[in-house]
C-alpha cells in the first residue's frame, strides 16, 4: 500500500510524516516522531496506557489510525510540561502522592485525568474512579492515583 503524506499536530508542533494507512497513532508517535512517552500495553483498547488527547478528548491511540488523526490537535504526555522543567499540577500531584510506581500506566492515567478535569474541574472520588475505568495499573492499587487527582480537584475548588 502506498504511504500517504500527512501533517500531525502534536503538542502544538507540526510534523510532516509519510505513513502507511494501517499504521496506528501510537506507532507513529513512538516510531516516527520519537515520542515514547505514550506507552503501549494491550493494543486492544482495554488498558489505557496509550491514551492521548485528540481534539481535547481521551482516546486509545492504539485503535486510532494515524491518517485519521491528521490535522487534529494531539496532546501527548510530552506536551503537558512543555519546557520539561515545571511539572504540570497533575504530574506534581502524582509524584507527591506516590501514585507512580513502575510508571508504565502513568502517561495514560495523567491524560485521562486531564480529560476529566477539563470537563469537570471538581470531580468527586466516585467520578474520578469512573473516569479511570479504562486505565489499568498493575502496581499502585489505584488508591494513590485517585488521591493525587482528588488533590488537584481540591485545589480547583478553592
Amino acid at each position, binding site marked *: 500500500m502506498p504511504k500517504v503524506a500527512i501533517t500531525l499536530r502534536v503538542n502544538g508542533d507540526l510534523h510532516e510524516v509519510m505513513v502507511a494507512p494501517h499504521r496506528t497513532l501510537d506507532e507513529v508517535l513512538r516510531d516516527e516522531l520519537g515520542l515514547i512517552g505514550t506507552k503501549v500495553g494491550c493494543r486492544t*483498547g482495554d488498558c489505557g496506557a496509550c491514551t492521548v488527547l485528540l481534539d481535547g478528548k481521551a482516546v486509545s491511540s492504539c485503535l486510532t489510525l494515524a491518517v485519521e488523526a491528521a490535522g487534529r490537535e494531539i496532546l501527548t504526555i510530552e506536551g503537558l510540561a512543555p519546557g520539561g522543567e515545571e511539572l504540570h499540577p497533575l504530574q506534581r500531584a502524582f509524584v507527591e502522592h506516590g501514585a507512580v510506581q513502575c510508571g508504565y500506566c502513568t502517561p495514560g492515567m495523567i491524560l485521562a485525568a486531564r480529560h476529566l478535569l477539563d470537563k469537570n474541574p471538581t470531580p468527586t472520588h466516585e467520578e474520578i474512579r469512573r473516569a479511570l475505568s*479504562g486505565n489499568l495499573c498493575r502496581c499502585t492499587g489505584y488508591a494513590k492515583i485517585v488521591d493525587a487527582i482528588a488533590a488537584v480537584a481540591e485545589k480547583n475548588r478553592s
Partner: protein
Amino acid sequence: MALPRFEYLSPGTLDEACALLAEHGADARPMAGGTDLLLRMGRTGRAPSFVVGLRRVPGLADVRFDREHGLSIGALASLATVAAHPDVIRHYPALAQAAAATATVQIRNMGTVAGNLCNASPSADTAPPLLAHGAEVLLHRREGERRLSLSRFFRGPGRNALEPGELLREIHLPPPGERTGSDYQRISQRSQVDIAAASVAARVALDEEGICRSARLALGAVAPTPLLVDEAAALLEGRPITDEQVAAAAALAVRAARPISDVRASAAWRKKVIGVLAARALRAAVEKALAQ
C-alpha cells in the same frame, strides 16, 4: 500486534462513500470510530482491501431533538456525546444509561452508537434501549434511502440488514410521550468495562389513571440478536403495572431468552438473571414515568 495492511479511502459525501462501497463490494468496509473494526483486524490478522472512513462526511455527527419529531442520532455521533446529551438523559433515559455503561471513557469518545448497531453483536449495549424506544434506522445508498424498524435490522450475530453499498445514515426515535419512563439494566462478570453478560431495557407509558398505555421490553446478550419481548408488551398494556404484572412480564422475558453458554456466563445463569433484570428495569421505568 500491528494491523494488517489496507488502503484508506476518505470520501467527502455520503453518496461518494456508498459508491466506493458498491464498487468494491466485499473488499471494502465502512469505518466510523473503528473500535470494533480495527480491534477485529488486529485479532484476526485479516483486513478488507479498502477501509472507507466516514469521518470527513459532513453533518453525520449531529444529535438533534425536538418534541414534535423526536430524536435523530447521526452515524458519527459518539457514545460519549449521546450519553451526555441533555435531551437524551431527559427523554430517553435508558439510552443515556446504556451509552454511559458501554466500554470505557476512551472507547466512548471514539465509538459511535451507529457502529454499535451495525456491528450487530447480541450484547451491543445501545440495542435494547433503542429497541424499547421504537427506533428506526435510515439506510442510505446512492439510489435512495429506506427506513427500517430496528427490530428488523438485526439478522444474527454480526449480521445486519445492510445491503452492499448501503450505509446507516441516522437512527431515529419517535417523540417521547407524556408520563413515559425508561430504564436500562446490565450485568457483567467484573466491572462495567466488561461486555454485558445479560441486559434489559424497559419503556412504559402510563395514562392519568396509571394504566399502562404502551410498554416495551428488550433483551440483550440472551439470543442471537437483541430481542423485543412482544408478549410482555401485550401483557402489560391496558392495565395498571402491579407487582404481579411485573413478575409475569419478567417470566415472559425468561421464556423469550434463548441464551448460550460462553466465557461470560452460562446459559442457565443468563436465563435466571434476565428475569431479575427485567423486573428491575420495569419497576424503575414505572417510577420514572410517575415522576414526570
